[in-house]
């Protein structure tokens, strides 16, 4: 994972609720065995429409995805996070995220910024009115700032995830520092627990 401190840029306003992971990356794209190449699959079923917001010239180059409520509900496919990142987004803003999607974001350095519905609505309207509106997501301060609108709000990011984001750390290496505790736990597991071979 690459370290992430600040995400600064413009946003794409994806103004619809309940954008589930089947919409973010349709199942045809899940057959790949590689971790890359998912950018073209992002919102694949909507991308054919030239009017689709991501196809509009004024939003090209944006690096923040502004979603409606219940963004990323549905399946556990991490491919949804990979597709969003590989397309060029570094942060996603919504008033409510699907929980597995949100957790997957934390494993890849995609910043999921949860804001109130009021802020979300305000941002959506503002970005639709002015595609050049600049947003700043500050991982260190855990804030979303939009100076032109006078917005500066905090968002939740646990200490542990923030630490990994700022340092680009891999969970597995950190967990392996607790190998002794894992060994001890295994020694105390009840004998009746099943094994697969």
């Amino acid at each position, binding site marked *: 994972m690459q370290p992430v401190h600040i995400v600064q840029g413009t946003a794409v306003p994806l103004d619809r609720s309940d954008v589930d992971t*089947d919409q973010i990356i349709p199942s045809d794209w899940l*057959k790949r065995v590689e971790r890359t190449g998912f950018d073209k699959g992002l919102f694949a079923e909507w991308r054919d429409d030239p009017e689709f917001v991501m196809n509009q010239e004024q939003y090209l180059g944006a690096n923040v995805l502004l979603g409606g409520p*219940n963004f990323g509900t*549905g*399946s556990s496919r991490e491919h949804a*996070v990979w597709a969003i990142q590989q397309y060029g987004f570094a942060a996603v803003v919504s008033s409510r995220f699907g929980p*597995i999607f949100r957790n997957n974001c934390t494993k890849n350095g995609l910043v999921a910024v949860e804001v109130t519905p009021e802020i979300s609505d305000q941002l959506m309207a503002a970005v639709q009115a002015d595609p050049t509106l600049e947003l700043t997501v500050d991982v260190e301060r855990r804030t979303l700032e939009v100076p032109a609108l006078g917005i500066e709000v905090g968002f939740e990011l646990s200490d542990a995830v923030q630490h990994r984001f700022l340092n680009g750390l891999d*969970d597995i290496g950190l967990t392996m520092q607790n190998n002794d505790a894992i060994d001890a736990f295994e020694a105390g597991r009840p004998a009746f627990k099943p094994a*697969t071979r």
Partner: protein
Amino acid sequence: MSVTTLATTMQPTRSRRGTNSRVFIPPVKHNPAADNLHGVSNEPKTLSQKVWDEHVVHRADGEPDLLYVDLHLVHEVTSPQAFDGIRQSGRTVRRPDLTISTEDHNVPTEDVDKPIADEISAKQVDTLRANTEEFGITHYPMGDINQGIVHVIGPEQGLTQPGMTIVCGDSHTSTHGAFGALAFGIGTSEVEHVLATQTLLQPAQETMSITVNGTLPEGSTAKDVVLAILGECDTGGGIGAIAEFRGPVIEALSMEGRMTVCNMSIEFGAKAGMIAPDDTTFAYLEGLPNAPKGADWDAAVAHWRTLRTDEGATFDREVVLDGSTITPHVTWGTNPGQVIRLSDNVPSPDMFDDPVAKDAAGRALEYMGLTAGTPMREVPVDTVFIGSCTNSRIEDLRAAAAVAKGRSVKNGMRTLVVPGSGLVKEQAEAEGLHQVFLDAGFDWREPGCSMCLAMNPDKLKEGERSASTSNRNFEGRQGRGGRTHLVSPAVAAATAIAGTFATPEDLQ
């Protein structure tokens, strides 16, 4: 939304274990499993807290708990990048003996003795076979009697047991919660983490109880119960919580029914869904291939009987439904919370006060090609799918066959019956269910996920409308432009015969 009319209370109460780990820091404990087995802790706990606490390997201030994983289920779609990561970092699989693998999402349901025709699907399946071979993981390939949908094979092999932690790179892992296991879906990075360490980092979750009182009316099923719950909780009511399903209706369900209910926990956002193990659970498990035997069985049951929410334990959220009012349900929209009674009419966006719900309803009706006010019983269906990790077990097939027996599917109707595993298929054929289906004009297929998510050749075409026993009615879920309505197996079978949404009673 309030299209259904169930008596409900949704009461957010003070959080015992807040979602923000900085607020409530539990004391450091290093192997609480042993403590809890010996009943040291006196504080009343919920079922999920007990199972959680038994698996804490490491707990520290400001960090998520490190939980031990008793069983890791692996399939072809969410694992290749994880195995790659293991290889690239020079790590290995810590506990192949606590890991089981199958191929289900991509596999065709016809001609399974031939190679998979779709090259990309074939590559993904071949990759899993090579990975499991390399790391010494037991794998059930297509055509093997033990192969099937990952959430069907765990329970039928007796690998799913009460009080376990079970994970899989699939959001419907909550299915295993029917046994009183703490089971949830994980992403590919976490799959790699479990392969390497047999543990997972998990922030504390809130607790949620969903109580279904009374008794179900004749003709209503576990699927209708969970669809009614979705009507109440919508797609977000469970976010940040582990749900426990309780009450007389839940206790009266078979294990298959309980799995159907727990399966859809993620559809209202819950981390997991659980049901306290009881004599129904133990009777189901006893004698299964991997169930404990002899003295181990006695020790296991003695412990499993302690896995109940204590008197005096409180939940952060509570939902109560009156089961006696739950009639057959059907979804009308493009998320599982958009659900009504089959006897209702297609709702109008005007019925929703919340502007977001109103907007979503309008969009859903347009995608689904439905007109507000149309009775659901008059909506014509062209495809019926009976299968998926929600409803492909033997009891589901029996329920559908009971409706199909002696009847014929509507002319032109496409029907797929896809058993959940090789063992389910074998059992169904031993009971003659396949002949009932074939005589009625249904297709009888080989096991797999099939049309639930359209990764194999079983797909809806643009504009086709299905009655499906699966778990998601998202746009394009069963094929681009396809329109999915979620129903129970009995309703699916009746709909195949009537040609429009119908209950078995409608066929009389």
